[in-house]
C-alpha cells in the first residue's frame, strides 16, 4: 500500500471532503496561499479551492470559532484551524459554552457540524504557550467529541468522519506526527468514532496510549519483547466517545494496565481511564493501575527540562515493569 505522511493524509481528507461537499470550507490564521497553515496541512488548498473556501482570518480565535459556529448552524460544514492547541484557551467560551451547548440548550433544534483542528504536544522547544496537551479540558465538556489520531491512516479516516458528522469535534493532532509516514489506502474510507484500535496484540500488560505516546509505547513494546515481556497497546482514537469495551476486554485479558498520555496527570485523560478501569474492572486487575503522564507543570523551554517532563519509551518501560 502507498505511504503518506500524517500531514498529507490530513490534507487529502480535507481536499476530498471539499470536493465531495461544497458546504465544507476551511478557516483559520494563515491557512491560505502564503503559509498553508503553520504546519502546512492546508498547503495548496487555497490555490485549488479559492480564498472563499480556504479563508485566512485575522488573529481572532474567539471570532474564528464563533463565526464557524454561525456557519455550522445555517447549513455549512466549517473546519476551523487553531494554530496551536494552547491557543484554544482564547476561544473557550465559543467552544465550551456555545458550540458544545447549542444543540442541547435549544432542545435539539439544530446541529453543529463543526470541526476544530489543532495540534498539541511538546518536544520541539517552543515552551509553555505552544506545547501543552489539553484533551481533558474538552473531554470534560459534554456536547463535544474528541478525536486523537496517532497515525496517517487514523488521521484521514477520523477527519472524514468528523467532517461528515453533525456534532462539534475537537480534532487534536500532534506536532511530532506531521512528518510521520504510514500506509493510507487510495480509496475512500472513514473510521467510526468510539472504535479503539489495537496497535499491538500482547499478553502480559495493557498499555492505553494516545497520539505520540502510541509511538513511544510501540518502541517500549519492542524493547520489552526482547526481555520476554509482551504488551498489548490500545489506542482509543477518540476520547469522546470512548471505546470502553476495548479497554475492558484488554484489561480482562492481561490483568494489568499502564496509561500513557502526554497531558499532565491531575484530572487528566489518565485519571478518567484509571477511574473507569477501577470502577468497572477492578476484580480483573492483578496489580495497581499505573499512570505515565506529564508532571503538573507548564511545558518548560530548555531541552533538558522539556525532555524531563515528557513521558517516553523509558518511562513507559519502567511503568510496565512495575505492574508485572
Amino acid at each position, binding site marked *: 500500500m502507498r505511504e503518506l505522511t500524517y500531514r498529507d493524509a490530513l490534507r487529502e481528507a480535507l481536499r476530498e471532503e471539499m470536493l465531495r461537499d461544497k458546504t465544507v470550507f476551511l478557516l483559520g490564521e494563515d491557512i491560505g496561499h502564503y503559509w498553508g497553515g503553520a504546519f502546512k496541512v492546508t498547503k495548496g488548498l487555497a490555490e485549488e479551492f479559492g480564498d472563499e473556501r480556504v479563508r485566512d482570518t485575522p488573529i481572532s480565535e474567539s*471570532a474564528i470559532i464563533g463565526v464557524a459556529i454561525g456557519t455550522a448552524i445555517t447549513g455549512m460544514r466549517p473546519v476551523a484551524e487553531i494554530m496551536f492547541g494552547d491557543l484554544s484557551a482564547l476561544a473557550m467560551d465559543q467552544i465550551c*459554552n456555545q458550540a458544545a451547548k447549542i444543540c442541547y440548550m435549544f*432542545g435539539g433544534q439544530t446541529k453543529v457540524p463543526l470541526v476544530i483542528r489543532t495540534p498539541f504536544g511538546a518536544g520541539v522547544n517552543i515552551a509553555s504557550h505552544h506545547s501543552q496537551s489539553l484533551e481533558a479540558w474538552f473531554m470534560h465538556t459534554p456536547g463535544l467529541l474528541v478525536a486523537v489520531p496517532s497515525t496517517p491512516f487514523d488521521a484521514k479516516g477520523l477527519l472524514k468522519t468528523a467532517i461528515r458528522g453533525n456534532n462539534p469535534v475537537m480534532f487534536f493532532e500532534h506536532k511530532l506526527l506531521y512528518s510521520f509516514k504510514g500506509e493510507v489506502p487510495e480509496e475512500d474510507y472513514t473510521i467510526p468514532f468510539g472504535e479503539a484500535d489495537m496497535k499491538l496484540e500482547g499478553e502480559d500488560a495493557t498499555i492505553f496510549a494516545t497520539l505520540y505516546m502510541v509511538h513511544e509505547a510501540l518502541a517500549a513494546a519492542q524493547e520489552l519483547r526482547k526481555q520476554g515481556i509482551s504488551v498489548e497497546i490500545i489506542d482509543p482514537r477518540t476520547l469522546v466517545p470512548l471505546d470502553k469495551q476495548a479497554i475492558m476486554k484488554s484489561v480482562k485479558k492481561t490483568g494489568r494496565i499502564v496509561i500513557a498520555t502526554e497531558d499532565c496527570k491531575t484530572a487528566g485523560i489518565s485519571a478518567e481511564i484509571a477511574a473507569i478501569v477501577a470502577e468497572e474492572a477492578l476484580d480483573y486487575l492483578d496489580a495497581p493501575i499505573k499512570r505515565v503522564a506529564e508532571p503538573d507543570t507548564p511545558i518548560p523551554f530548555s531541552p533538558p527540562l522539556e525532555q524531563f517532563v515528557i513521558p517516553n519509551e523509558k518511562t513507559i518501560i519502567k511503568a510496565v515493569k512495575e505492574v508485572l
Partner: protein
Amino acid sequence: MPEKEKLIEMYRQMLRIRHFEEKVYELYGQNLVPGTIHLYVGQEAVAGGFCANLRKDDYITSTHRGHGHCIAKGADLRKVMAEILGKKTGYCKGKGGSMHIADFSIGMLGATAVVGAGIPIAVGAGLSIKLRGTDQVVAGFFGDGASNQGTFHESINMAAIWSLPVVFVCENNLYAMGTRQSMVMKIENIADRAAAYGIQGVTVDGNDVLAVYEAAHNAVDRARHGEGPMLIECKTYRHKGHSRFDPATYRPKAEVDEWLKKDPIPRFKAKLQKIGLLTEQEAEKTEQEVISAVEEAIKFAMESPYPTPEEALENVYA
C-alpha cells in the same frame, strides 16, 4: 414613512412584547417561573422597529434579554411562554428557559446568556449567507455591556473585512447590570466605534420606533445588496431592573421618570393617532387581541406538562 399596515403591525408587535413581559413579571411573582428573568419592557421599539424590516428567512441572534427579539421575529407566544415556565412544549423542550430561546424555523438562531457571545455567531450566519449565495440578512442584537467584550471587536472587524450582510444592533440601555455606561467607556455614542472598523455607524433614539425602523431599513437594504455591515446604536432604557431580583436603586429617580415619559408605546400610539392612522376604537381592538393572545399563551404553557426527568439526558449530541 412605511405604509399603514406596516405601522400598525409594528404597534401590535410592541404591544405583544409589552403585555407578554408584564405577564411574565406577574407569573414570576406567583412563583410560577423558575430561575430568573430579564425583561424587555421599555425597549420594545428596538426589536419592533428593527424586525419589521426582516424577512422570515433572515436571521437574528439574541441575548439574555431576548423575549422581545423572539416575539418581534415572529415566534409563537405559546412556545415562548412554555419555555419560560420550563415546559416540554417550549421551544427548547424546557432545556433552555428564558435566556436561551431559539426558533430555527423563523431564523431566530438563539439567545446566548454569555454577554457578547452571540456577536461572532451572527457574523458566521452572515458568512454562511455569502458562501451559499443567498440574499438573506442577519441582525445581531446585543447591549452596551457587550460592546466592551473582545468578541465585539473581533466580530465587527471580520464582518467589515469580508463585507458580510450583518447589521450589528446595539441596544444601549445605559446600564450593564448596575454599571453605568460612563463608568466603563470614554465615549458617549457606541456607534462611534464603527469608524475603527471602516464601517458606518449611526445612533438613533431607540424609544422612537420610526427612527429605529428607518435606520434599520437603510442598514438591511445595504446589507442585502452586498454593501456590507453597519452598526446601529439604539439608545433606550429598561423600565425594570436588570433581572427580577434587581430593584435598580443605582438609577436616579429623576432619570427613571424622564425615560418613563419617553415610553415608546404611548409615544407611537399618540403619533399614529395624530396622523390619523389609528382610532381609539382600533387601538382598543388591537390591545384586546394582544391581551387574549397572551392569555392563550399562558393557558397553553400552564396546561403543558413538564418534561420527564430523564429527558435531561437527551440532545447532548445531534
